[in-house]
């Protein structure tokens, strides 16, 4: 559940989600769930030319299983905190 909690803290931040089909979408993180399905708002596709059908999509739901990367804002990563949480999880706490 670590990454689920982690992504929950990122709600409201601007992220770029890169999918396994090379589609990269930038938008405001609206919500995540246990499968790491993601909902984005105010989305725009990074390579608009290649994906014209995405032009009028402003809000979207992305299935967690098709996500390759989530690019985070630099201030969204507190390594120290993540490190501690990882150890706690590993200990079964």
């Amino acid at each position, binding site marked *: 559940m670590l990454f689920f909690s982690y992504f929950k803290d990122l709600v409201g931040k601007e992220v770029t989600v890169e*999918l396994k*089909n090379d*589609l990269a*979408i930038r938008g405001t993180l*609206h*919500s*995540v*769930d246990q*499968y790491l*399905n*993601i*909902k984005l708002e105010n*989305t725009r596709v990074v390579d608009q030319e290649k994906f*014209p*059908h*995405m*032009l*009028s*999509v*402003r*809000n*979207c*739901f*992305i*299935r967690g*299983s*098709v996500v390759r990367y989530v690019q985070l804002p630099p201030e969204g990563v507190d390594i120290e905190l993540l490190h501690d949480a990882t150890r706690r999880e590993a200990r079964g706490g």
Partner: protein
Amino acid sequence: MSWAGPEDIYLSTSLASYLDKKLLVLLRDGRKLLGILRSFDQFANAVLEGACERVIVGDLYCDIPLGLYVIRGENVVLIGELELEKEELPPHMTRVSETEIKRAQKVEREASDLKGTMRKRMEFLDMD
């Protein structure tokens, strides 16, 4: 199982807020389906009413009507809400008939097949 209350729906990652709206569903094989979401579950299995497939070849496109579709969740890549007041596609794209888009698809497929066989024949040259 308890249902999310109306105030939770818009804050959750469920597809409930997309019910009865016109959506674009991207599938893993690259297909694009348009339709109205009538039902879904936790796997993103979805029922689309009045579904059609949008085929895009270069600057040409066509919406092929399909009817009522149940989509198995594992094939879903993305479900997007379509802004109805906005142009759905860039203005330079033209709508053509089903026969024309099928022809354009065939031409495109043959071109990429040819490219593949050419590359195979040239492999002994060991380019890169």
